[in-house]
Protein backbone atom coordinates (compact mmCIF):
# COMPACT_ATOMS: atom_id res chain seq x y z
CA UNK A 1 0.00 0.00 0.00
CA UNK A 2 1.44 3.34 -1.02
CA UNK A 3 1.94 6.26 1.32
CA UNK A 4 -0.78 8.39 -0.29
CA UNK A 5 -3.21 5.52 -0.16
CA UNK A 6 -2.41 4.77 3.46
CA UNK A 7 -3.27 8.33 4.46
CA UNK A 8 -6.50 8.13 2.51
CA UNK A 9 -5.44 10.75 0.00
CA UNK A 10 -5.99 8.57 -3.07
CA UNK A 11 -8.13 5.54 -3.68
CA UNK A 12 -10.93 4.51 -1.36
CA UNK A 13 -9.74 4.63 2.26
CA UNK A 14 -10.85 1.75 4.45
CA UNK A 15 -13.83 2.17 6.78
CA UNK A 16 -11.41 1.69 9.68
CA UNK A 17 -9.13 4.51 8.52
CA UNK A 18 -12.08 6.87 8.02
CA UNK A 19 -13.60 6.07 11.41
CA UNK A 20 -10.23 6.50 13.14
CA UNK A 21 -9.70 9.87 11.46
CA UNK A 22 -13.22 10.91 12.40
CA UNK A 23 -12.75 9.98 16.06
CA UNK A 24 -9.39 11.74 16.23
CA UNK A 25 -10.70 14.90 14.58
CA UNK A 26 -13.73 14.87 16.88
CA UNK A 27 -11.46 14.67 19.92
CA UNK A 28 -8.98 17.30 18.75
CA UNK A 29 -11.62 19.78 17.56
CA UNK A 30 -13.44 19.39 20.88
CA UNK A 31 -10.23 19.94 22.85
CA UNK A 32 -9.38 23.01 20.79
CA UNK A 33 -12.84 24.47 21.41
CA UNK A 34 -12.66 23.71 25.14
CA UNK A 35 -9.30 25.50 25.39
CA UNK A 36 -10.55 28.43 23.32
CA UNK A 37 -13.80 28.98 25.27
CA UNK A 38 -12.27 30.56 28.42
CA UNK A 39 -10.34 32.99 26.18
CA UNK A 40 -13.54 33.83 24.31
CA UNK A 41 -15.38 34.44 27.59
CA UNK A 42 -12.53 36.46 29.07
CA UNK A 43 -12.48 38.74 26.05
CA UNK A 44 -16.20 39.47 26.18
CA UNK A 45 -16.02 40.05 29.94
CA UNK A 46 -13.54 42.88 29.31
CA UNK A 47 -16.56 45.06 28.62
CA UNK A 48 -17.21 45.08 32.37
CA UNK A 49 -14.33 47.57 32.49
CA UNK A 50 -16.04 49.67 29.83
CA UNK A 51 -16.45 49.47 26.08
CA UNK A 52 -12.99 50.96 25.63
CA UNK A 53 -11.46 47.93 27.34
CA UNK A 54 -13.41 45.63 25.02
CA UNK A 55 -12.22 47.56 21.97
CA UNK A 56 -8.66 47.30 23.27
CA UNK A 57 -9.01 43.53 23.70
CA UNK A 58 -10.67 43.16 20.29
CA UNK A 59 -7.69 44.89 18.69
CA UNK A 60 -5.59 41.90 19.74
CA UNK A 61 -7.75 39.65 17.57
CA UNK A 62 -7.06 41.60 14.35
CA UNK A 63 -3.54 40.47 13.29
CA UNK A 64 -3.64 37.97 10.44
CA UNK A 65 -2.34 34.97 12.43
CA UNK A 66 -5.07 35.42 15.03
CA UNK A 67 -7.69 35.73 12.28
CA UNK A 68 -6.35 32.57 10.73
CA UNK A 69 -6.66 30.81 14.10
CA UNK A 70 -10.26 32.03 14.24
CA UNK A 71 -10.94 30.50 10.84
CA UNK A 72 -9.50 27.20 12.08
CA UNK A 73 -11.68 27.40 15.20
CA UNK A 74 -14.80 28.05 13.14
CA UNK A 75 -13.96 24.99 11.04
CA UNK A 76 -13.33 23.02 14.22
CA UNK A 77 -16.73 24.02 15.58
CA UNK A 78 -18.46 23.12 12.30
CA UNK A 79 -16.65 19.79 12.15
CA UNK A 80 -17.38 18.98 15.78
CA UNK A 81 -21.09 19.60 15.22
CA UNK A 82 -21.35 17.68 11.95
CA UNK A 83 -19.09 14.90 13.25
CA UNK A 84 -21.20 14.74 16.39
CA UNK A 85 -24.33 14.32 14.31
CA UNK A 86 -22.54 11.55 12.39
CA UNK A 87 -21.59 9.81 15.62
CA UNK A 88 -25.11 10.01 17.05
CA UNK A 89 -26.61 8.74 13.79
CA UNK A 90 -24.34 5.71 14.17
CA UNK A 91 -25.00 5.24 17.88
CA UNK A 92 -28.75 5.84 17.92
CA UNK A 93 -29.82 4.85 14.40
CA UNK A 94 -27.16 2.25 13.49
CA UNK A 95 -25.98 4.14 10.39
CA UNK A 96 -22.67 2.27 10.34
CA UNK A 97 -22.89 1.63 6.61
CA UNK A 98 -23.01 5.34 5.79
CA UNK A 99 -20.29 6.42 8.17
CA UNK A 100 -17.80 7.16 5.38
CA UNK A 101 -20.27 9.35 3.52
CA UNK A 102 -21.21 11.08 6.75
CA UNK A 103 -17.53 11.79 7.44
CA UNK A 104 -17.11 13.34 3.99
CA UNK A 105 -20.17 15.52 4.62
CA UNK A 106 -18.71 16.61 7.99
CA UNK A 107 -15.42 17.58 6.35
CA UNK A 108 -17.25 19.43 3.59
CA UNK A 109 -19.36 21.32 6.11
CA UNK A 110 -16.29 22.27 8.16
CA UNK A 111 -14.41 23.48 5.09
CA UNK A 112 -17.40 25.46 3.84
CA UNK A 113 -17.92 27.12 7.24
CA UNK A 114 -14.24 28.02 7.51
CA UNK A 115 -14.14 29.45 3.99
CA UNK A 116 -17.33 31.42 4.45
CA UNK A 117 -16.02 32.89 7.68
CA UNK A 118 -12.69 33.75 6.07
CA UNK A 119 -14.39 35.43 3.11
CA UNK A 120 -16.46 37.56 5.46
CA UNK A 121 -13.55 38.33 7.76
CA UNK A 122 -10.68 39.17 5.43
Amino acid at each position, binding site marked *: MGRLQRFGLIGAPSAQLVAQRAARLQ*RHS*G*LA*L*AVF*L*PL*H*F*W*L*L*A*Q*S*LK*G*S*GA*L*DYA*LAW*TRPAPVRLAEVVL*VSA*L*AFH*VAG*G*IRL*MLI*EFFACHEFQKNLFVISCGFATA*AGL*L*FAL*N*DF
Partner: protein
Amino acid sequence: MTHPSRETWLWLIHRGSAVAMLPFVAGHLILMMLTVRSGLSAADILGRTQGSVSLVAYYGFFVLFVSVHAALGLRTELAEKLGWRGNRLDLAAATMGLLLLATGGRAVWAVYSVSA
Protein backbone atom coordinates in the same frame (compact mmCIF):
# COMPACT_ATOMS: atom_id res chain seq x y z
CA MET B 1 -15.70 -1.59 36.39
CA THR B 2 -17.86 0.66 38.50
CA HIS B 3 -20.86 2.97 38.52
CA PRO B 4 -22.86 1.69 35.52
CA SER B 5 -25.73 4.03 36.29
CA ARG B 6 -23.53 7.11 36.62
CA GLU B 7 -21.55 6.36 33.48
CA THR B 8 -24.70 5.76 31.47
CA TRP B 9 -26.32 8.97 32.68
CA LEU B 10 -23.18 10.99 31.96
CA TRP B 11 -23.09 9.51 28.45
CA LEU B 12 -26.75 10.41 27.96
CA ILE B 13 -26.18 13.94 29.27
CA HIS B 14 -23.16 14.35 26.99
CA ARG B 15 -25.19 13.32 23.93
CA GLY B 16 -28.28 15.17 25.17
CA SER B 17 -26.41 18.44 25.67
CA ALA B 18 -25.01 18.01 22.15
CA VAL B 19 -28.48 17.68 20.66
CA ALA B 20 -29.75 20.59 22.76
CA MET B 21 -26.93 22.77 21.45
CA LEU B 22 -27.57 22.12 17.76
CA PRO B 23 -29.90 25.13 17.20
CA PHE B 24 -27.62 27.31 19.33
CA VAL B 25 -24.51 26.42 17.33
CA ALA B 26 -26.37 26.90 14.05
CA GLY B 27 -27.45 30.35 15.21
CA HIS B 28 -23.95 31.16 16.45
CA LEU B 29 -22.33 30.15 13.15
CA ILE B 30 -24.75 32.27 11.13
CA LEU B 31 -24.50 35.22 13.48
CA MET B 32 -20.71 35.27 13.46
CA MET B 33 -20.56 35.13 9.66
CA LEU B 34 -22.84 38.16 9.52
CA THR B 35 -21.25 40.19 12.32
CA VAL B 36 -17.62 39.65 11.41
CA ARG B 37 -18.38 41.29 8.03
CA SER B 38 -18.48 44.79 9.43
CA GLY B 39 -15.40 44.18 11.56
CA LEU B 40 -15.66 43.64 15.28
CA SER B 41 -16.11 46.62 17.57
CA ALA B 42 -17.34 47.04 21.13
CA ALA B 43 -20.06 49.40 19.91
CA ASP B 44 -21.34 46.75 17.47
CA ILE B 45 -21.34 43.91 19.98
CA LEU B 46 -22.71 45.78 22.97
CA GLY B 47 -25.22 47.69 20.86
CA ARG B 48 -26.71 44.35 19.85
CA THR B 49 -26.64 42.60 23.18
CA GLN B 50 -27.08 45.30 25.80
CA GLY B 51 -30.43 44.98 27.53
CA SER B 52 -31.66 42.29 25.15
CA VAL B 53 -33.43 39.66 27.26
CA SER B 54 -33.83 37.22 24.38
CA LEU B 55 -30.12 37.35 23.52
CA VAL B 56 -29.09 36.98 27.14
CA ALA B 57 -31.39 33.94 27.43
CA TYR B 58 -29.97 32.50 24.19
CA TYR B 59 -26.35 32.93 25.30
CA GLY B 60 -27.18 31.90 28.86
CA PHE B 61 -28.55 28.52 27.81
CA PHE B 62 -25.75 28.13 25.27
CA VAL B 63 -23.15 28.66 28.01
CA LEU B 64 -24.94 26.21 30.31
CA PHE B 65 -25.08 23.44 27.67
CA VAL B 66 -21.54 23.98 26.46
CA SER B 67 -20.16 23.90 30.02
CA VAL B 68 -21.81 20.55 30.68
CA HIS B 69 -20.83 19.13 27.28
CA ALA B 70 -17.20 20.30 27.44
CA ALA B 71 -16.76 19.10 31.03
CA LEU B 72 -17.95 15.60 30.09
CA GLY B 73 -15.80 15.53 26.96
CA LEU B 74 -12.75 16.58 28.97
CA ARG B 75 -13.65 13.96 31.60
CA THR B 76 -13.32 11.22 28.96
CA GLU B 77 -10.06 12.71 27.79
CA LEU B 78 -8.62 12.82 31.34
CA ALA B 79 -9.64 9.21 31.94
CA GLU B 80 -8.05 7.96 28.72
CA LYS B 81 -5.02 10.22 28.42
CA LEU B 82 -4.00 10.64 32.07
CA GLY B 83 -5.66 7.53 33.50
CA TRP B 84 -7.62 9.47 36.11
CA ARG B 85 -10.42 7.59 37.87
CA GLY B 86 -13.02 7.90 40.61
CA ASN B 87 -13.54 11.02 42.70
CA ARG B 88 -10.48 12.76 41.34
CA LEU B 89 -11.82 12.45 37.80
CA ASP B 90 -15.32 13.60 38.70
CA LEU B 91 -14.00 16.51 40.77
CA ALA B 92 -11.75 17.63 37.92
CA ALA B 93 -14.62 17.46 35.43
CA ALA B 94 -16.99 19.29 37.77
CA THR B 95 -14.38 22.00 38.38
CA MET B 96 -13.86 22.53 34.67
CA GLY B 97 -17.60 22.65 34.07
CA LEU B 98 -18.15 25.17 36.85
CA LEU B 99 -15.23 27.31 35.66
CA LEU B 100 -16.68 27.42 32.15
CA LEU B 101 -20.12 28.18 33.57
CA ALA B 102 -18.75 30.98 35.77
CA THR B 103 -16.56 32.62 33.11
CA GLY B 104 -19.27 32.15 30.49
CA GLY B 105 -21.97 33.51 32.75
CA ARG B 106 -19.78 36.49 33.54
CA ALA B 107 -19.25 37.16 29.83
CA VAL B 108 -22.97 36.99 29.12
CA TRP B 109 -23.67 39.32 32.03
CA ALA B 110 -20.98 41.68 30.76
CA VAL B 111 -22.37 42.07 27.24
CA TYR B 112 -25.90 42.32 28.65
CA SER B 113 -25.31 44.91 31.33
CA VAL B 114 -22.65 47.24 29.92
CA SER B 115 -23.77 49.95 27.55
CA ALA B 116 -21.76 50.88 24.51
